[in-house]
């Protein structure tokens, strides 16, 4: 395979993932009952068609063949032969899963082949069942229809290529050729009596054929948006026809309703490699430093013109910095649509009725954070459906709630943070139950008296899972503690509030970006170090009253009666001891596990710093979470205080006497 071909294929896979995400979203929207289902069906059809065309062009025959089948089914939906029901959506989602599986597989191994027979049969069963049994359209597809379909499918299958695995060129040709003709024939055959429908078909096919040509042309040129216009126009004609022939009054208000809702044409996007963005960020950072240097020379400049230019440059530099920082930001949309799917699948498996409400899916967050946010969110949402909501609708009705459980996922910005809330209106968390459970598991002692909120927080304790039986959905015992840790890993925090009987809220608070942190620049000897501000609770100057030396271990600081071990940063970092410094400053650090004090020679300022990862060569160095370039252009290390003291604290703890001093 030459490089160009490989590149094309990789491009395709990237694009396919995007398309699939869009696709799934539409399926789910369809299911939740949107006002204008036709738009969504059209959209899905377009996506599937697009996928089929491009996958063929880059010779992923398995994908092409499968999407072809999928497209057939969508077409049937489009033509109204198949009613959109939960079961049909199920099949669609299965298709989308299968496609995802294939695409991901191909990304790992470009030569990978896939078996799609089973799912193709499933697809066909949906279509043919409805076709044979018109009455099925009315209600959901009953399960037994599948058995019946087996026979039909067997017949149907004979003229299709049997196994995608040994698909030869010729066969591919055949499918290629049979595609348009076959579909047309089939379509005509299915509804010979209905004139308007076949008219419609022709219209659609005319369009589809045109699209195909586009797609097979250079892949790189394919842009989904480009297809919007022709199809839209067809759609208009379609509805016009409907109106004419069926005299459906509904069409008009529908369109009217759809018009304002439709967002402006989505902004065109290009994909950029992360490394490029990173490089740009680096250069911009450098630009900012240079600009600062230039501004500081202000006094030396006599020429007014130059001075003006410098201040103008400062403004522009700021703008550029803003933009380059925003480049890493992506909307939460894709993650939220994944959650939508989770809610759907989970509620279905549990037989619960759930109404999902998503707010703020356009909220943006750093891509790196988003990637690590997905798993914890899935867990929390799943929990909300499984544990949060009442077990049955009857339980809900009994306490005077609506039959459907409400789950709300809400994202918004709060200062420099992103907040995501997962609300449920279920039964709430019972502190008493948690307390008992925690005692049972040995997390707390039966004699411990703890407040309700503290009890609720115990769900984040390691090895805690309240559900009696470990279910398939949630509760594998690795629950919330992992969620909490994952969120903390990206410098976030999670908290839970719950009102017994009326629901719970999980609130995740995250930094908007991991690229920038709020830091405190401190001095130790002649070196500057950055300490992340989020860990520092307060600062105070070290005086004889509050600092006690303890043997040679170090010392401790007494703050409002609390004794905390204190460490000199210079010692932790192996610097030569300084002569007595009268102006030392103590940083009070509060973490989950312990509180301690770090003593530095001086605190210079507070500033936002851009985190640069350390090179591979010193990446694993303990005690540093990265480096940053300060205003003077010199790099400084960003300290990971917890890691720095972790060994020392163990030592200190052994000397239990430390707590009794003072």
């Amino acid at each position: 395979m030459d490089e160009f071909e490989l590149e094309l294929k990789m491009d395709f896979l990237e694009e396919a993932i995007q398309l699939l995400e869009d696709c799934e979203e539409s399926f789910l929207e369809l299911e939740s009952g949107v006002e204008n289902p036709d738009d969504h069906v059209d959209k899905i059809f377009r996506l599937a068609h697009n996928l089929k065309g491009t996958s063929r062009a880059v010779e992923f025959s398995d994908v092409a063949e499968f999407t072809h089948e999928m497209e057939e089914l969508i077409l049937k939906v489009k033509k109204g032969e198949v009613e959109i029901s939960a079961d049909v959506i199920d099949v669609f989602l299965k298709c989308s899963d299968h496609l995802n599986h294939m695409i991901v597989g191909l990304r790992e191994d470009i030569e990978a082949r896939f078996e799609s027979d089973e799912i193709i049969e499933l697809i066909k069963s949906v279509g043919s069942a409805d076709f044979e049994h018109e009455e099925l359209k009315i209600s959901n597809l009953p399960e037994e229809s599948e058995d019946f379909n087996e026979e039909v499918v067997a017949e149907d299958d004979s003229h299709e290529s049997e196994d995608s695995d040994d698909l030869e060129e010729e066969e591919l040709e055949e499918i290629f050729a049979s595609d348009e003709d076959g579909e047309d024939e089939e379509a005509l055959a299915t509804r010979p009596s209905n004139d308007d429908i076949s008219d419609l078909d022709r219209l659609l096919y005319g369009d589809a054929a045109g699209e195909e040509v586009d797609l097979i042309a250079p892949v790189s040129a394919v842009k989904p948006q480009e297809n919007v216009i022709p199809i839209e126009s067809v759609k208009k004609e379609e509805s016009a026809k409907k109106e004419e022939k069926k005299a459906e009054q509904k069409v008009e208000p529908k369109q009217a309703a759809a018009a304002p809702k439709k967002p402006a044409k989505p902004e065109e996007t290009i994909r950029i490699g992360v490394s490029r963005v990173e490089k740009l960020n680096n250069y911009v950072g450098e630009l900012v430093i240079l600009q600062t240097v230039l501004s500081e020379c202000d006094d030396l400049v006599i020429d007014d013109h130059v001075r003006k230019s410098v201040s103008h440059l400062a403004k522009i530099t700021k703008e550029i910095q803003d933009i380059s920082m925003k480049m890493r930001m992506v909307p939460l949309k894709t993650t939220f649509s994944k959650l939508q799917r989770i809610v759907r699948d989970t509620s279905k498996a549990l037989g619960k009725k759930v109404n999902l409400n998503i707010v703020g899916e356009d909220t943006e967050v750093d891509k790196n954070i988003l990637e690590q946010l997905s798993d914890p969110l899935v867990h929390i949402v799943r929990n909300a459906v499984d544990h949060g909501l009442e077990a049955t609708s009857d339980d809900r009705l009994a306490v005077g709630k609506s039959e459907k459980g409400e789950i709300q996922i809400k994202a918004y910005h709060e200062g420099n943070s992103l907040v995501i809330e997962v609300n449920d209106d279920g039964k709430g968390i019972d502190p008493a139950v948690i307390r008992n459970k925690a005692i049972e598991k040995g997390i707390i002692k039966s004699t411990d008296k703890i407040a309700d909120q503290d009890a609720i927080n115990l769900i984040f304790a390691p090895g805690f899972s309240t559900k009696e039986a470990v279910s398939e959905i949630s509760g594998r015992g690795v629950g919330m503690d992992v969620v909490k840790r994952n969120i903390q890993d990206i410098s976030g925090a999670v908290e839970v509030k719950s009102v017994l009987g009326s629901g719970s809220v999980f609130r995740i608070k995250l930094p908007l970006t991991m690229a920038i942190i709020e830091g405190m620049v401190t001095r130790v000897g002649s070196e500057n170090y950055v300490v992340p501000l989020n860990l520092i609770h307060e600062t105070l100057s070290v005086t004889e009253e509050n600092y006690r030396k303890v043997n040679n271990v170090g010392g401790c600081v007494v703050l409002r009666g609390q004794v905390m071990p204190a460490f000199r940063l210079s010692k932790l970092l192996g610097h030569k001891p300084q002569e007595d410094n009268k102006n030392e400053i103590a940083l009070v650090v509060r973490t989950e596990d312990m509180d301690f004090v770090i003593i530095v020679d001086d605190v210079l300022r507070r500033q936002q710093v851009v985190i640069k990862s350390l090179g591979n060569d010193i990446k694993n160095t303990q005690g540093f979470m990265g480096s940053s370039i300060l205003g003077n252009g010199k790099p400084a290390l960003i300290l990971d205080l917890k890691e720095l003291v972790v060994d020392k604290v163990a030592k200190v703890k052994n000397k239990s006497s430390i707590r009794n001093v003072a």
Partner: protein
Amino acid sequence: MEKEMTDVTQRYLEFKLGEEHYAIPLLQVRELISLPETTSVPFSPKYYVGIMNLRGQVISIIDMRTRLGVQPSESNEEAVIIVEFGELCLGIVVDNICKVLPVDEDKIQEVASIETKKRDRLNRVYRHSETDTLIQLVELESILNIDELTGLAKKAA
């Protein structure tokens, strides 16, 4: 007369550590800079000078002289060679940079491998025919033992 460039000719960058001549493949060299301001990293080995800001990228600087145990020369011409190989991007401090040297692979001599304490592989020597100097060809990969580097300061705490 120098031999004409052939397939077996490779280009090296020749530099001096103390009074001795060394060379590394030119392909690994990204750029040459003068010694910048550096920030030291606690608990790093002696040869690890610190980190520097290379146009927004933070990279490590290593002193080749300390690493190889060569006495630095009296001259203050220190220069830094930014090398790039594998996933690493590093700065290497040397005494001074001489020139780009075409090396005829045929003329590289393997000397009996010298077992130094650190088991560095410095066993390829090139004799410059005109000046009759011996130039040691350095294999960065083995000199800058990556494992050793990544393990830097793991002992820190």
